[in-house]
């Protein structure tokens, strides 16, 4: 065998190994999601006895949905509404404040600018969960716990967004453009509204995406702040269904509720689907965005 063919053989083997590893891990990522999608179409018995990746029926899916809706007087609808209210509320405040602050930090002379940037950097790295217990104490003294505001306001503090906006405006907003606007007699606020804001559309999309995903999935903050079941968001509600019904563990006590594993899976699906859909549609622009947040270029 010549050296050349031996080398080519080695290449083929390496390529095959690479393909197998990637495909294998891809399957490992995909199978749980497919299972989750299929689980609510089956009865609990089918879920245990049938093939894990088989399809039940749409009628069963409808029944599971009905069971879930019946749980605690349709509290599910309340959770969905809460999730939307909390996520969108925080999104609006966080994106608005981030844009304004990032813009001002990038183009204006403001007192304590450097200190603000350093604090923002630190705050951006510290996971929001680290502050949840002290936040509870703080909001408790002003009697705001167990309200929508106790979830929306703390989640509106969004240093990552400020930093991203700061980078965006300092790198992609030409100074000459601002100068030209000033010469035309435009006010500083007008410059932001008529020049910077339209230029920042991709940035706004990106900030909205990250803020929405983080708030939609938020667990620890609402878990700590909210004490009434009707105020929960979907993830906390799902947690309550999972650990409060015998669906996953009969040791949780007998129950006449028709909340079994397919219903729990359906509740999980409700949390996941909006994010998954956004993920798939935004992947391309996300990659660029995540990088813009971490790389200088």
């Amino acid at each position, binding site marked *: 065998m010549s050296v050349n063919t031996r080398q080519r053989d080695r290449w083929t083997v390496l390529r095959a190994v690479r393909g197998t590893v990637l495909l294998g891990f891809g399957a490992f990522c995909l199978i749980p999601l497919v299972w989750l999608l299929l689980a609510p179409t089956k009865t609990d018995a089918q879920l245990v006895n049938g093939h894990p990746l088989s399809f039940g029926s749409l009628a069963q899916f409808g029944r599971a949905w009905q069971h879930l809706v019946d749980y605690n007087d349709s509290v599910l609808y309340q959770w969905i509404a809460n999730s939307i209210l909390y996520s969108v509320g925080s999104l609006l405040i966080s994106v608005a404040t981030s844009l304004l*602050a990032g813009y001002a930090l990038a183009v*204006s*002379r403001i007192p304590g600018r450097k200190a*603000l940037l350093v604090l923002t950097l630190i705050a951006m790295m510290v996971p929001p969960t680290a502050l949840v217990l002290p936040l509870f104490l703080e909001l408790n003294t002003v009697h705001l716990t167990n309200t929508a505001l106790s979830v929306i306001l703390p989640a509106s503090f969004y240093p990552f967004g400020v930093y991203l906006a700061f980078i965006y405006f300092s790198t992609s907003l030409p100074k000459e453009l601002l100068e030209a606007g000033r010469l035309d007699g435009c006010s500083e606020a007008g410059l932001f509204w008529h020049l910077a804001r339209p230029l920042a559309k991709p940035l706004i999309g990106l900030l909205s995406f990250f803020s929405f995903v983080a708030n939609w999935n938020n667990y620890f903050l609402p878990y700590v702040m909210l004490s009434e079941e009707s105020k929960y968001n979907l993830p906390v509600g799902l947690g309550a269904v999972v650990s409060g019904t015998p669906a996953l563990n009969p040791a949780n006590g007998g129950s006449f509720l028709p909340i079994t594993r397919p219903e729990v899976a359906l509740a999980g699906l409700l949390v996941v689907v909006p994010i998954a859909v956004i993920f798939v549609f935004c*992947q391309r622009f996300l990659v660029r965005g995540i990088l813009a947040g971490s790389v200088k270029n």
Partner: protein
Amino acid sequence: MRRRFDRTGTLFVLPYVVLLFVFGLGPAAYSIYQSFVDDRTGTGDVGLSNYQFVLGDFRFWPAVSHVAIYLGIWLPVMVVGVLVFALLLHERASRFSGAMRLLFFLPGAVTGSASILLWYCMLEPSLSPFAPALKAMGLESGNEIFQNTHLTVIFALIAFTTGVGQWIVIMYGALQNISADVLEAAALDGAGAIRTALQIKLPQISKYVLYMVILCLANGLQLFVEPQLIYGITHTAGSPWWSLNQFGYALAFQNGDFGSAAVISLLLLVLSTGAALVLILRTDFFQTEVDR
């Protein structure tokens, strides 16, 4: 000449500054204060008694060791896993590579309580599509799997699967920033795919690896929902104070001892701020500062 500040700019930054003080610095300062106030005696004494109490509590050191072991397993697996997959994907850009990146990204959509639910089912042999693999490892039932000794591994597995895709995408992006000239030169020198990956590409993205390790470290310290829900489901695996954050929660809401809970919050806050500072001071990631 005295520098004048822009009024509009100051107004613009104000709402954020309010949020920063009320929901960032405020609670941090409050937890420092609270940690020195003794609630337990009812006298409100100021001192170190909360620190003594927490350090002496039978739940504290186990929680520290659980989180430490969890990080000890998860971080290396995460670093190696992300690098292997990113390098394999980058070895040859193709439609296949793009599709795989999207696939690896998808489990990241299932986080928090939904991911615990999903992975509980994936590890329960009576439900799981992975049952043959679990049984091959000698794990026949959920009770055998959800044991205290397995919890750190299980949480590391969940955190790895939900987090790996996002970091693969970031590393892949970093790899694409390596200039084509460097890679061409390596190829001319006769470096194979493996040598190029390990000796050329890897050193070029080491900064991103540090970035990832520190962010993951700070996040991993905060472990809460995983142990909380697995204990809620099983009642045997773990405890309501298995992780540090759980312990802090239990102190605050079961014992009503907010002073001691503040000690735990402060500990986590100091550790994650420390990690943040290392990142900011030791790398030039954040030198985007535009001087004017």
